[in-house]
């Protein structure tokens, strides 16, 4: 029981972490809560289904592993493009407009995306193909399915890749510089618009991957999954310290564990409440999050 809940919690936690990264990166640079981010995750799930249809139409063959890699890449690339477009249409014109306007704009985009998918793909649930139907591994009474293993593996690869990108490359340096001080970064010759677009692309790409992963885990998607996943991922980002990349990963894992154990040992009806209660508790006692610093209001 304990081990099983641990595994379930880590699985869903990995997904939360992937989505939370997008929130935290965007917040780090623009100080904007990107409400539309959850919808990009939902788009990713749909892109997974669409990509599967495409893959079958192409009929290039290959085993389930090749298929799933194709789906992940397909969803990541298109979700990244969605992210760039959202930024260009909804956020860039408002960059000098203060706080409230981009938030409302983000909310608007989120409604638009939900309804766009509902109108184009129908309001019914879509079934995600069961690609990795294997036996899985049993450890001490707990069961790890192949899909769960894939989720672990993919998320760890993604997070490692992101860490290297941000810490070691020139692009990553430019991103960190922009997050620290946008004007100064511009003076140093960094194309800030490009960096912001790139940030949205990376964050949205990760959300798209998360969409495919979750869809292949639950095998059932609909147009409103983005709202709650987005809310929880944001909680994860706050939990770890918003704007802080390792914090988002940690926060996601912790949130996943809390939900799994809460559902297992306390009550599964209130599963969705735990995340918000934790969010409020953290905001009261440690608003900076686990790894964050104190937030100082910029003048």
């Amino acid at each position: 029981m304990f081990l099983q809940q641990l595994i379930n919690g880590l699985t869903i936690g990995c997904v939360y972490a992937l989505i939370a990264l997008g929130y935290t990166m965007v917040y780090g640079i623009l100080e904007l809560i990107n409400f539309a981010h959850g919808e990009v995750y939902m788009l990713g799930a749909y892109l997974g289904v669409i990509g599967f249809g495409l893959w079958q139409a192409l009929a290039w063959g290959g085993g389930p592993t090749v298929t799933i890699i194709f789906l992940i890449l397909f969803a990541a690339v298109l979700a990244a493009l969605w992210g760039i477009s959202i930024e260009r249409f909804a956020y860039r014109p408002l960059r000098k407009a203060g706080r409230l306007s981009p938030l409302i704009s983000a909310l608007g985009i989120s409604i638009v995306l939900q309804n766009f998918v509902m109108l184009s793909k129908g309001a019914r649930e879509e079934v995600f193909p069961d690609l990795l139907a294997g036996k899985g591994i049993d450890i001490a009474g707990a069961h790890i399915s192949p899909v769960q293993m894939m989720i672990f593996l993919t998320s760890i690869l993604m997070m490692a890749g992101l860490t290297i990108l941000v810490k070691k490359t020139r692009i990553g340096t430019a991103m960190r510089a922009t997050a620290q001080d946008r004007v100064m970064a511009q003076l140093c010759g960094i194309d800030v618009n490009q960096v912001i677009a790139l940030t949205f692309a990376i964050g949205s790409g990760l959300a798209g991957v998360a969409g495919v992963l979750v869809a292949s885990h639950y095998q059932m998607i609909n147009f409103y999954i983005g709202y709650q996943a987005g809310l929880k991922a944001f909680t994860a980002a706050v939990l770890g310290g918003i704007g802080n990349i390792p914090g988002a990963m940690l926060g996601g894992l912790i949130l996943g564990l809390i939900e799994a154990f809460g559902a297992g040992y306390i009550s599964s009806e209130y599963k969705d409440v735990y995340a918000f209660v934790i969010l409020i508790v953290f905001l009261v006692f440690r608003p900076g999050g686990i790894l964050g610093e104190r937030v100082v209001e910029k003048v």
Partner: protein
Amino acid sequence: MVLLIVGLISVPFIGWWKALLLGLFGAIYIWATETEHKKPRLISTLMLGRTTLLNRIRQYPSFHFSFLPYVVFALFVLIPFVFNRYQTEIITLAYIYVTLAIGLNYIVGLCGMLALGYIAFYAIGAYTYALLNTQFGVNLFVALPISMVTGGLAGVLVSLPALRLRGDYLAIVTLGFGEIVRIVLNNWDSLTAGPNGIMGIARPSLFGVKMGTPLGYYLLAGGLAALAMFVQNRLAKSRTGRAWEAIREDQLAAAHSGIPVFRMKLLAMALGAAWAGAAGAIFASRQTHISPESFTFLESVLVLCMVVLGGMGSVWGPAIGALGLIIIPELLRGVELYRMLAFGLLMVWMMQFRRGGLIPSMRLKTSSRVA
């Protein structure tokens, strides 16, 4: 480039032809609104910028608006005698939303804080009356103030942790609170009867006169909405209202001018939530049956749309926004699937081209720094 990207990302969802059209539209849109050269190329001339027709009329001293409320009031009293029963009921519902929009206007419009789970206070007000009535047989007019108090208290409790922090956190905390309320209402079977909801809520009577007719509700909801508008109109022009607007425009400067920022924000939250509670009580008695599914996130968004599209911070704006967003979809049956899509797009565009909404507040600056 834009054409390519927008086309590419929408192909999987809507097919080649529509995607091409959408991409073309996106490219033209970006070209037309390019702000690199000081002003947007086309749209600014079309959108009249910030000077509005209304402001222009206001400049003529002889044309005062003081008589307008009375005319409007008289017209609205006549409505139930002119329209049929169904139409009257739709307008009654619209009045409940007017009260909600006016309430949210305290928080979003006047004080500049984004609250997203606003419908939770409405739910609390509705359940307060429903429980008081079904358990203890309390009359609506006795329960109405109690609903306002419970709603307002909930507003204070939610905002206490969030208000000390950066503004955007309030949006998330209220959003989370809205979800918590809905989930608790759904699962606390012994008190709220879970997803089935509470049935058999009594219609109101005043001194033995039954008020449960469509006309009675029309007057009741309309009266509440009118009262809400009147109170807000007075408050917004008072010292308190000016303090809220100062906080909205620049919190730091407001604090330095001696405005107790935290207390004023709390007051705005409490008042906004209290009006939602009152609207909830009326809603519960009108429906005689309430269940958690009436209080979803979508409703919160709808009320926010009313405030934003109508005009944040002005009293007439949210009211007209509420009437419009309830009545127009009724007139346009058949395309109502596209309703939310259109509202979302309008919200994005309003933020870019007409931040003040349909009827902008007279004192709204376009750069509200503090959310």
